[in-house]
């Protein structure tokens, strides 16, 4: 089939999303975006000794949003929270083999979801 606007990697993650689902007793949960913009991303983290041992997501959104969420969970699993916090949207987009210019915001949303989940973890830890 001729190449559409999405890379093979994006289509692969769209068709076979990694780590899709929920974590019941998550240590950090981040939900960003809003339905009016077309994308809502929810990221669940399981953290042990400051290390991300599991990550899952649920996303309402376009192909790029689903692929960005899926790739983000892959990139952060096994990382310490100090390492994970450094993950940029550019790194997510690059790992996906690039995103169309109009879809860059989907990778930004994934970065924001990760930050929100890590903030939630820190808050819970303090509380």
């Amino acid at each position, binding site marked *: 089939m001729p190449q559409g606007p999405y890379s093979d990697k994006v289509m692969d993650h769209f068709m076979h999303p990694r780590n*899709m689902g929920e974590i019941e007793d998550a240590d950090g949960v981040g939900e960003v975006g809003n339905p009016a913009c077309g994308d*809502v991303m929810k990221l669940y983290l399981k953290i042990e000794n400051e290390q991300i041992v599991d990550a899952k997501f649920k996303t*309402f959104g376009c192909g790029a949003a689903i692929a960005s969420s899926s790739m983000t969970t892959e990139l952060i699993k096994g990382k310490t929270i100090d390492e994970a916090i450094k993950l940029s949207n550019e790194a997510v987009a690059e790992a996906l083999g690039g995103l*169309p210019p109009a879809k*860059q915001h989907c990778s930004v949303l994934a970065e924001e979801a990760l930050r929100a989940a890590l903030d939630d973890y820190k808050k819970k830890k303090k509380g």
Partner: protein
Amino acid sequence: MKRIFFDHASTTPLDRKVLEAMLPYFIEYFGNPASLLLEEGSVPHQAVDNAREKVASFIGAEKDEIIFTSSATESNNLAVKGLALANKGRGKRILFSDIEHYSIIHQADFLMRMGFEIEYVKVDKSGLVDIDDLKRKATSGTILASIMHANFEIGTIQPIDEITSLLKKHGILLHSDGAASCGRIPVNVKELDVDTMTVSPHQFYGPKGIAALYIKKGTQLTSLIQGGHQEMGYRAGTENVPAIVGFGEAVRIAADEMENRMKYLTGLSRKLWDGLAASIEYMHFTGHPVRRLPGHVSFWIEFVEGESLLLWLNLNGIASSSGSACSSNILAIDETGLKASHVLTAIGVPPEICHGSITFSLGKDNTMEEVEHALSVMPDIVKRLRDMSPLYEQFKKTKGGN
């Protein structure tokens, strides 16, 4: 995998008979129709003349009321700008319906820079023009209204005759974009009483790169492309002879087959509509239930995003279109191109839901088996996307709590 094309609102495949009619005019009869004194020019000239006659009689017009252009977009631009400029002395107000095609609404900035004022007329939930709103806005100083005949996205067909009789009382001209209607349903410009109307043959198995504008005799209209004397001075440029010939042939076939096609397509879309309604929860059809294009089924599904749905349908071999912000302009240079469909917003669909809309537009070569295939894959796709959606998760929890 054999592809199932349910996106005839975007374009249609060229009819082979149309291609055959066009072929001699590329090489054998290559002459310029303007070279009337030469043997080379006379055959193409006659061919253009015949095609003009066919297009005219197809929509109930006279031959000299038909202008060939390069596209429906050009026809819409020629009509609206041409009528506005020629009638500037009478006023500066122009009405657009809220659901006009981009080739109408995107003229607004230009027209405003030229000193015109644009006012938008509302439509109701089914996509029909709100006649009371039109009455309120049809004031003195209004020179022109542009109200499409049928809408590609939601399928609704406007009661144009009713609209023109209201506008005529106030001396307001009407342009109607007939790109979606002409060739799909019977159209008679005299009965509709429009001043100008766009016809687009690639919507009914004719070629791309060619369209027509009907201009009622005696209408003042300023040309936008100056040059030679082609198209009665309304539109200069050497005629696209093969495409014009193809247009004529597409019109001939459409006139012959119209009744059968309409009946056949109505049967297919009824099956699709009923099947979807029976198998998918929280789904809503858009557009008018009766006053709609044959073969046209449009809907939105709660908790399902349109582009993802479109991509999954595509992976299952089915071509559809989505009013989803995310798919409507994926090649835009930035995300400002990604807005929820103005048509769905106009009929009152909330923006978060506009993202889940899909249009299936069927054509003469689609079959009942294809409809059944679409019905068999839809529930699984919807389930897959809902299982992934945090909105659906939240909805289920809230619902469970009740």
